[in-house]
């Protein structure tokens, strides 16, 4: 049977090994491949920027992945998910760079994080739990930079999967394709990653005074 999945890359060999060949139904023509690639550059850059948090690093990452993709274009099969195929290369490049730099500190402890952490703490601290969408207000008051910072504090394998999930609307099976892991691993990492993220967000909200501002009674006009 013809294997129509994204080419399997050896996880242990780093990002430069895209030269493995698999049985393929139909590789794309050069112009077709280039059009597919150009169409995913913007989301790839956005994702890379969220992962690296530096514009120059994000650009380098996307360029490295693009050139590797060009070199391995014959391994992409027309009719399969190009974005997932390319993001798989991108993530592998990111992991390779991360391994080399070892610069992402892990700061979140998972084991003691209960489910629905934000909701539970909101109730315990007297935040409104319904009405004018309190969760949305909490996230809005935290702001984009803190949310990005919170994700960067997750252990790398959780940060990668959560960023894919939150940014790209990939279904679980697409994330599994990108990361080359079983569906159950995606489900488990997302579940745990969300729990950790909620914990970090709560502590950030406390430190930033967001919680106290939300629990403070509004002053009536005199």
């Amino acid at each position, binding site marked *: 049977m013809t294997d129509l999945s994204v080419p399997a890359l050896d996880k242990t060999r780093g990002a430069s090994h895209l030269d493995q060949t698999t049985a393929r139904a139909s590789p794309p023509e050069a112009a077709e491949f280039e059009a597919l690639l150009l169409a995913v550059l913007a989301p790839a850059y956005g994702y890379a920027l969220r992962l690296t948090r530096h514009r120059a690093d994000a650009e380098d990452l996307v360029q490295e992945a693009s050139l590797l993709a*060009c070199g391995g274009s014959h391994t992409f099969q027309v009719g399969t998910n190009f974005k997932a195929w390319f993001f798989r290369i991108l993530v592998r490049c990111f992991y390779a760079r991360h391994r080399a730099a070892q610069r992402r500190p892990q700061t979140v402890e998972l084991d003691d994080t209960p489910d629905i952490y934000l909701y539970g703490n909101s109730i315990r601290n007297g935040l409104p739990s*319904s009405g004018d969408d309190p969760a949305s207000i909490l*996230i809005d008051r935290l702001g984009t930079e803190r949310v990005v910072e919170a994700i960067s504090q997750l252990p790398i394998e959780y940060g990668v999967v959560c960023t894919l999930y*939150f940014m790209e609307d990939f279904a679980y099976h697409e994330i599994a394709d990108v990361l080359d892991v079983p569906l159950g691993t995606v489900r488990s990492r997302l579940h745990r990653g969300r729990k950790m993220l909620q914990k970090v967000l709560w502590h950030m909200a406390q430190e930033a005074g967001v919680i106290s501002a939300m629990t403070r009674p509004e002053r009536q006009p005199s």
Partner: protein
Amino acid sequence: MKQLDRYTCEEAFRRLDDYLDRELSPSDMARMQEHLETCAGCAREFAFEASVLDGVKRKLRYLDMPSDVLARLTAAIAQQRHGSNEAGGA
């Protein structure tokens, strides 16, 4: 017998992530919705969770790629493709 087809709060809670991500089967989605229509506590928790996810998604999305970055990437790709073609044609 109908009662057996309904989720308890615990069963619903176990499926919270899959429900919010629409990864349940149509029949399980229907059971969840049925539970949420009759359980105000779970409905409140689920709505809160959904709102957290939506809020984080809103914050993380919509990053524009600067035009100069696009130009450099496009040029690098074109150069690579051009080089490949020349090597292939040599």
